Each structure stands twice: as C-alpha cells, then as structure tokens.
C-alpha cells in the first residue's frame, strides 16, 4: 500500500490506526469522496492532519510565504549586475546567445542589447549586489540568499505561472500550496491552510488565474482560498443582510441537528463530514473578519509596513501574511501584479519597488522580531526574468521582454543561508551557466525544507505517480541550506 495514495489513505484499517494515533473521533473527521472513493481528510477541510509518515524527516520550515512579483521582474535591474551588457548597450545582441531560443514579443525584430538601467551597490557582510531600485531589500542583504541562475520553460505569463506553481504547464495539476497542505496538513482549525492575496500597481496588471491555487487532482479542500482585500474577505463569509451572528449560529445548529437526526436512520459518514464542514464554515465567519481586522496592530507596525488597513495594497497583504503565519496557515501566496515591464522599465520599476520594497523588508523584519522567520521559508521572485535585449514598445521608453533562460529570485528564513549569492548567468545575463537552478530544483528544495522527500511525495493520478517535481530529474539545492 502506498501511504501517499489518496485512495489508500482512506482504508478502514488505516483510518482506525490513524484515529487511534491522533485521538480524534469520527465526528470531527471528514471523509472526502473522490470518484466514489473515500478519502481521509479533516472535517474542517483545511485543518487536515496531513498524511501518515509525513514529514519524512525533521522540517527546517513549517510554512511558506511566496512573494510573487507577477509579470516577471528584471533580474538585470535587481540582483544580476552585468557591466559587459552596459558596454554592448545599443549594439546587436550576438546571435550566439539568441539563436534558436524562444522569443516572446520580440519575435521577428532586430535584437539589441540593453545595459542595466540603474546602478548597483554591494551590501551586507558579503557584499551582495543589489540594485538601487531596492533600497529596503539592500538592508536585508545578510538575511537573503540570492539565486541568480533560475531557469524556466515557459515564456508566456499564464503558462509560466502555472509551471512555477504546479511544475507543469498542463492544466489540472495541484499547486505547491495544495501539495504542501495535502502532505503536511494545516495547523489552523479556523482558517484554510492555503491563502492567496493579490495586489496591483505598476504596469497593466497581470491576470492571475485561479488555476494558480487550484488543488488539481487532490481533494478540493486543499485548494488555495483567495482572500479579498475589499468586500467580504472570503466569498460568502459574511452573513446575509438581516441575519445576525447568533441567528446564523442557531441556523447552523438546527441544520446539524436535522442532519444528525436523519443520520440515525441512514448511518452515512459523509453526513458527519458535512456537519463538521458547517461548523468550520461558521468558525470562519468569525475568524476571517478577525484576521482581516488590523485594529489590534500598533501604529508602529502599520508604519513599518506602510500599510493602511483595508487599502488592499501589497503592504497590507504583507502584514496579513504575517498574521496568517502566526495563525498556522501553511502556505501564503502573495501576488503583486505590476511587473511586466515591456516598456518604460525604469518608471515601472520605481513604481513597483515603491509599492513593495519596504513592505517586503517589514515582513521579514517583523517575522524575525517575532521569532517566526526561523521556521518560515520566504521566497521572492516572478514567473521569469527579462531579456538582456531592449524592447521599444510603442516608442515609450526602453523595456525588456520575457526571459526564461536565466533569472533571479531570493529565499530567506527557515533552513536558508542568508547573505549569500548562488549561481550565475553568462556575461550578458542571458543563460544561467553556473549552478543552474531549474524551477523543479526550487520545488525540490522547498519540499525538502518542509521535511518532505520530493522523490517520495507522489500521488496516483491517471495511473501515474504524480510529483510536484515531475518526471525529469530534480535536486535539492543543498549549497544554499544552513
């Protein structure tokens, strides 16, 4: 029996052993049915208890905060300084770099090099190179590990995000947050284990499909739940107008009694699950507004993030990310949607960094102050980087096109060595050439830090052992771990 097969986890004997182990009665356990199969899953949906046997080994991080700069921030204006590119600026890009390579919006155009559009400095004890667009990240130089050798496979936004989040561009696969919650369960019994927050600003906002937080073939309870910054944070989490909280509670209680009464005749476990789901739903009606209400945050904290409660900004989302982390949410995914800088890159970098840089610093600092950073993995980056070639879209000022053959991200927190730079691209910032980190390797490293052996973490789907890291070889990037 494969303990990771959702079909197997539900077997009666297993269930008994599992219940004995956790000391939990059936009343609070949900049995998820997929294609007629029972699944063991936690009743309150997101507060699942994880799979037996997981984590495989002691985790270095308990949770993940993924700060996704959607659109694809330029590595050449953030963490990958290329003086040789400056020397070549305005000249044709050598064909040896570009021949036979996938090209997005620059298809059919003359490819010309574009030097860095800002200055870089060296920061922290090891002199990490960080551009002037990121004055606050500069202060984090000793906390973050910059990886300059990321490689992806998808050159358009939608599939690139899908690849970053699910390990493939094919629709219908679970995203990282779903995988992680499925494997490890959630530590919150009143919030979903996988929460998504989005914000805008900068260039025309990137669409982010709900596929990016889908549970794919995993039970739907593991899907990410997007929290809205305005209106009801979670759809239908507010009582209908005219219904007070006590009434809603009474209603839920009556429904539970009616269901329980019916169940005395039909003896269906699924009804117990349902009752538990209703109870959790009711709890969420209180816990979600509590989470979103920043009234208990000090003015100092709000100022540190630059957040105004309820403004829906990246800064507010960073603060919410910390609150979610405190409450045991396993995977917190933030998207800032303004980073697709095909034109006027300098202008838009200023806007995007202005909206995010300080808040990112505040989040890491706050986590550190509260002792949360040591078991929280924080990842910063986009779905890809940007071309060393210039894009002159509409004559509006130089920008850069999508680029997947070498780009930068940074990691910090649980299990990550701060203050180092890993990997390198070639002299023009085109191809990753040293210590290449494929997105699959990033996935493997993430799982590893959470105590999951990427090779042993698979689920049967359509007869295949599906893994987040896919079928191609992947490796844990041990060199950047503490």
């Amino acid at each position, binding site marked *: 029996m494969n303990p990771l097969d959702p079909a197997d986890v539900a077997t*009666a004997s297993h269930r008994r052993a599992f219940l004995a182990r956790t000391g939990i009665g059936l009343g609070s356990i949900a049995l998820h049915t997929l294609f007629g199969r029972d699944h063991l899953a936690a009743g309150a949906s997101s507060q699942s208890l994880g799979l037996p046997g997981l984590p495989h080994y002691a985790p270095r991080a308990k949770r993940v905060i993924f700060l996704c700069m959607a659109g694809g921030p330029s590595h050449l204006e953030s963490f990958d300084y290329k003086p040789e590119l400056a020397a070549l600026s305005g000249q044709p890009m050598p064909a040896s770099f570009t021949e*036979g390579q996938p090209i*997005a919006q620059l298809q059919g155009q003359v490819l010309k090099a574009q030097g860095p559009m800002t200055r870089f400095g060296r920061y922290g004890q090891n002199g990490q190179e960080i551009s002037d667009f990121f004055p606050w990240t500069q202060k984090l130089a000793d906390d973050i590990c910059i990886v300059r050798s990321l490689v992806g496979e998808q050159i358009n936004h939608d599939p690139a995000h899908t690849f970053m989040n699910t390990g493939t561009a094919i*629709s219908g696969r679970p995203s990282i947050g779903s995988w992680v919650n499925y494997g490890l369960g959630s530590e919150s019994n009143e919030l979903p284990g996988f929460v998504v927050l989005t914000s805008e600003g900068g260039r025309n906002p990137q669409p982010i499909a709900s596929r990016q937080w889908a549970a794919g073939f995993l039970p739907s309870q593991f899907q990410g739940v997007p929290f809205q910054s305005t209106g009801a944070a979670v*759809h239908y989490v507010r009582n209908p107008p005219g219904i*007070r909280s006590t009434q*809603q509670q009474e209603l839920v209680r009556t429904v539970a009694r009616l269901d329980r009464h019916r169940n005395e005749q039909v003896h269906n476990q699924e009804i117990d699950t349902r009752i538990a789901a209703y109870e959790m*739903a009711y709890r969420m009606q209180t816990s979600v507004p509590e989470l979103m209400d920043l009234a208990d945050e000090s003015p100092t904290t709000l100022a540190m993030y630059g957040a105004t409660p309820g403004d829906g900004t990246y800064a507010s989302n960073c603060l919410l990310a910390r609150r979610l982390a405190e409450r045991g949410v396993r995977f917190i995914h933030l998207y800032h949607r303004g980073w697709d800088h095909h034109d006027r890159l300098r202008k838009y970098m200023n806007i995007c960094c202005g909206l995010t840089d300080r808040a990112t610093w505040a989040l890491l600092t706050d986590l550190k102050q509260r002792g949360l950073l040591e078991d929280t993995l924080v990842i910063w980056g986009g779905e890809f980087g940007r071309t060393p070639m210039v894009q002159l879209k509409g004559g509006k000022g130089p920008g850069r096109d999508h680029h997947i053959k070498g780009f930068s991200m940074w990691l910090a927190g649980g299990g990550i060595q701060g203050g180092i730079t890993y990997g390198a691209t070639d002299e023009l910032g085109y191809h990753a050439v040293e210590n290449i980190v494929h997105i699959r390797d990033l996935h493997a490293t993430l799982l590893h830090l959470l105590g999951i052996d990427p090779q042993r973490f698979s689920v049967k789907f*359509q007869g295949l052992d599906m893994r987040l890291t896919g079928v191609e070889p992947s490796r844990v990037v041990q060199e950047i771990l503490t």
Partner: protein
Amino acid sequence: MLKRVAFVLFCLICGRHPAAWGHTPRLDFNRDIRPILSDKCYHCHGHDAEQRQAGLRLDQEVAAKANLGGYRAIAPGDPDASELVARIVSSDLQLKMPPADSGKQLQAEEIATLRRWIEQGAAWSEPWTYVPPLHHPIPEVRQVGWPLNWVDRLVLSRLETARIEPAPEADRVTLIRRVNFDLTGLPPTPDEVDAFVEDRRPGAYVRLVERLLASPHYGQRMASYWFDLVRYADTVGYHGDQDHNIAPYRDYVIDAFNDNMPLDRFTHEQLAGDLLPETTGRSKKVERLIATGYNRLLQTSHEGGIQPKEYLAIYAADRVRNLSSVWMAATMGCCQCHDHKYDPYTSKDFYSMEAFFADIDEAGHFTKGGNALPTQRPPELDVLNRTQRGRLTQLENQIAVMKRRSDSHASETDQIRQLEKACQAIRAQTRRTMVTVSIPPRTIRILPRGDWLDENGPIVEPAVPEFLGRLEVGGRRPNRLDLAHWLTDPQQGVGGLTARVFANRFWYLCFGTGIARQLDDFGGQGEPPANLALLDNLAIELLESGWDVKQLLKLLVTSRTYRQSSLDRPEVASLDPYNQLTARQARYRLPAEMVRDQILAVSGLLVDARGGPSIRPYQPAGYYRNLNFPKRTYHADTDSHQWRRGVYMHWQRQFLHPMLKALDAPSREECTAGRPRSNTPLAALTLLNDPSFVEAARLFAQRILTEGDSQTQSRLDHAFRLAVSHRPDATERRLLTELLQSRLQQFANDPEAVEQLLQIGVAPIDQHLDPVELAAWTSVARAILNMNETVTRN
C-alpha cells in the same frame, strides 16, 4: 490497497476466505497480475523502448518467458527458477527489484500473488481493454424472482457467489426522486410523487421512466455531463480568459440528447460535421457545423508575445488528450514526450493522431483574436437556434406562396411586408459560434520530448494508433471523418472499445461509480472492471441498439439493481467497501448544477427557458479582480435569466462562479469524466450565504405561506414535501418549529433586519404577507435548503 480489496473481493467471489484456502485460488492475469506488473515494473520493463532496462520486457508474454541465456524472468510453473521471483525477494540491494530509487515497493501480498501465479502456470492474457467486448452468457441465479432483466442476473449471480443479499427495493418516494435526478437533474413535484406512489397499476415505474426520458430536461441533464468531458466553457482559458462564441454548441448538444441522436452520429457530427456528406435538408447542415464547435472548445491564448508555432503544438496536443480521454478512456497525453509507459501507445501514435486535426483553420487565433469581449476566433458562423430556424422557414415559405399568387392586392403587399419584417426580426437574433473549417493540412512532425522547437522529428500522416489497426481509405489522406467512423465502428475500428467507455459512464451516471472505476483510464494503470461480463454486455447492447442512449439508460434504471435501497449494511460494507458488486444503490451529494436547479425548483423560482446565451447569476463583487485584458465587470442578470438552470451558467474557466467551484464543478480546462464529491466549509458558506440561495429561501417561504393552510404543521409538511419529497417526522417538526418561534420573536423586534433580509435578490416580494412572518419562514426555509437530504441523491 485497492489491489488488496480486489483480492479480498476475488476470494469472496470464489466463496473462499483468505484464511481458509484449501486450494490455491486461480489467479487471473488481467485482474490480479497485470496491475502489479504495470505499477511496479513497466516503468523500466514495459512499452517504452527508451526507458527499457536490461532489454527485459514484462508487458509481452513471449519476452517475459523467453530464455535469457540459461534462465528466464518467468518460468511457468516454477517460481524458484524464475529470475523475477529471485529479484523481488532478494535482500541484496544491488539486485532487489524494484530498485530503491524507483520509489516503488512490492508488498508481501503482491510478491505472494506473483509467486502463486507462476506456480499456477503463469497464464497470460491480452489486456482486457483492447479485446473487443464479447457477449457473455447470462448466468442462472438461485433467486429467480429477483431479476427484472439480464443486468440483474449478471449482478445477482456475483452477489450469490459472494453470499451477499441484494439490498431491498427502495421505497417509491426515494425511487421517483432518484430517477428524477438521474434522468432530468430535477426533483419531482409533490403531485408527481403522489401520483407515482398511488399508481398501483402494473408498469407504473416504467411509465415514469418513459415520461422522464421524453422530458426536455433529460437533454439538459445529459449535456451537463457531456460538457465536462469535452471541456465546454464560455471563455478561452489562458491569460486574459476572454469570452469566446460557442453557446449555440450547447443548444446543439442538449437537442441531440433530447432527440436521442445515436451516439455514433453524435460523434461524427462533432468531430467532422463539416466533412459529412450532404444527405439531409438545409437546417441539418447548420447543426452539423455548429457541432464541429467541438474542435474549437480547447483552451486558447491571446496573450501578447505568444509564439504561434508553440501554441499550435499546444492546441494539437490538447485535442489528442481530449479525444483519447473522451472516446477511448486512454491517457495518450503521456505520449506527447515519450512512448506510453503502461499502455501500447507510442509517441508516433500521438503525433499521428494530431495529424487528423492538422486541417483545422485556426490561423485567426493569432491574427484576429485579441482582447475584445468576446474575442474573435474565426472561423465563426452566425446561426439561429432550431425554433428560430423553423419559424423562419415557415415565414419564408408563406412569403413565397403569397408572392407566387402575386395578384398584388395592396393588402397582400402589406402582409408580405409584415412577414418580411418578422423574418428580419428573427434574423437579427443570430448568435455567433465557432465552427470547424477544413484547409490544406499543415505539416505535423513528431516532436522529440514534446519540444516544439525541435524540428528533427519525422513527419507523420494521420493514422490511428498502430497496435489498434489501420484505416483503409484507398490511398488518400485519412481525415477527421475517417477517425470518427473508426471510433464508432465495431468491425473496422474500435467501436467496441468506445461502447465500453460510454456504457461504463452511463452506469456511473445511474450508480454513482463506474463498473471500471477509472472513467477516463482503461489502460494498464486503470482498474479492470469489477464485472467484465456486465460491462461487455452493456457495450454490446449499446452497439446492437444502434448507439441508442435512451434505451441503454432505460435498461439500467428499470433494473432491480437500480431500484435497490442505498442504505449501507455494515456486514456488506465490510465485505465490499467500494460497493463494486452493487449490493445497494449509492448516496451522494448532487452535482453543482443540480444543487442549484433543485433549490430553484423547490423555491418555485426555476425558469424553464431553453437555449440562448449564457446566464449570469449573482456573483460576489470584485470576483473578477484578478482578470485583465480587458478588465472585467460582471453584470448579474436582472430578469428571469437569473433563475434558469445551471447548465446555462456562464462558464468562466479561470474564475468559475464560486458556487460551481465550491461544489466541485470543474474548470473545464481538461476532460473531467467523474467529478470529485467534496464536503467543504466553502461549500457550506455557499449554501448558507450565496444570495441566490437566500433569495430562493425567501421565495420558498413565500410559497410555503401562500400555498398551504395557515397551520405551522401543515406548512412544514408542504415545505418538506417540496424539498425532500416526504413529510417531516416529529423531531424534524419540533426542531423547525423551535427555529420558527425564535425567529418570529426576534424579527418582531428587529424591523431593520426584516427589511434587509427580504431585500435580497431581485424576485418581487408578495406584499400581502406579513414581513415578520415571511422573514421568520425564510429562516426556516434556509434550514431546510441546507439539510443534507435536500441536496442528496440516494
């Protein structure tokens, strides 16, 4: 574990308990051995030549038993001389199979099973999937009075062998409710329930079934399932997720099911309606073209900077994945990068299948498709629906007749003008829909590792998978129509396989699970059918009836097997936990659209309008905030479209309506043959608080207050009969009465709350009713609509 269950079942079926094996039970290769070999060995010793280790194949009998220079992997009758056994029991990590780094492990039981099978002579058989269905003899049974048709005898015979009693027949109320949901997706009205319960004449149930199959709601229900398979949606799916024009295809599918169009014809029209010979009248041609919208249902992208060649490759692969899932229950998608590891499909097969679709004109995707709503995706056709077409023809004929008379009285000229105006009014109602237009085919190559940038692969022509035969088309290039015929022709093609695939799915629609449980994977990694004789005979029934879907469904739902109670019996559950022997019916939450339809029907809000563009129920503000190109504002319908059936809901792939999503409806990015059935807090929040459902509760309350007398008890009786088809018992009455009293009291002191609650939704309020009473009953109605039983089919 599944294998263990299968094994326990096997023992049961043989009337033996594992602990009491006097004789070794006879193992069956396809049922007991192939699943083990496939899962644990075929990755390196299977079909994929590139991955094959040590030149050893265990997927072919001759190779597996061949002399390998003094020893054999499998030596029939002699496990100790079989290298396979030596390697799987080896304690030497260098030798042990499967190797540690494969992540695979054989369980002790599996090893014992393999050993025993070799001991028994290692009898081999071809994969059941690719052997055409055979007619299996109908077995004799002991309880001769139980079966109503041959389906029952095939089921009962298995139950008798396993010494399991079939479940008693469900009561008539449960039965009419069950069959209503299964065949129409709607609940029966209290009058229909009464009529059926009281109809003691023979044949009452069969008459009920016939009425439901003839109902126009039948097509809507079946279409919902079809749309999951073919991934029908209103938007393009990638990046900007713009709307595209396809709604007429939805009407076509609904009409096709209602007309009981034979499934083979239905297949031909969708895959190749544009290539079908002209045999019928004008309007039919339009329908055949609308049907070819199937080839355009896939996800497309209009993102700036997409590389046409890459996306043509993506689209082509998408089509093969869908076709193979829908018609063949095959996972050919694996072969985009390599030969299939578990099934005989090759990479060449994959690209040869792609080549059938190489003639589809989709250049417009890259030149015309933009950020408009809807986006342009030529070729498109402006069409009328069937009623409109009929009316138009009628008017045109009338005009022609009048013109022929042409005595040109002023009054007649006037009349003609009127008629022409009417014609114009109808023509103005045309809707646009994507269709298939055939152009000279583009070149299709095998893409090594699926890499569209690699042009070194050989060019392929359209061909069916090699191991399944070849198309005889007299030297011309085979086309989509040839493929469609091949899929449905049991003699020259794989019609038998297709018939099995669909017989299995119709069974699933009536019993909640497939006879073969993997509805989209009949391959080596799927599960063999629990009752092959049953599946085969149903497939043959489907073929012999000329692909008559209604007839097959009638056969299923009129069986005694179908009419069993769904109540689980602990002693049976422990023997057959997955109900693979169908010793009872199934109980499960209704699919998302049916939940909506049920609640709207109960409240009296349901509007039974058919066809037309998609409808837009209320949706949380800002739900589309993460969409762009262009930015999207959702405008909920403010008229009666608000209360139409779920099958007509706007299907936004990237942001599916939260109700649909919470209740497990798929995004329709890929083929979905069976939906998950989850029970989550998000679903609870939806049923509790979605304004569509609160509005429905308000109208349900109105109905309760106006339709019955004024006694609380009879009002509750009526409410329960509407929602769950029976009266409440004493406990249910008490609980709801308590809720009512509490609410009456509270709302009497809270007029503001009353006003707010009654304003939810756009349905008008009956001004004759006391608002406090209406609000209190709305709360009772919410409780009833949220009961498990209300949204459960059992």
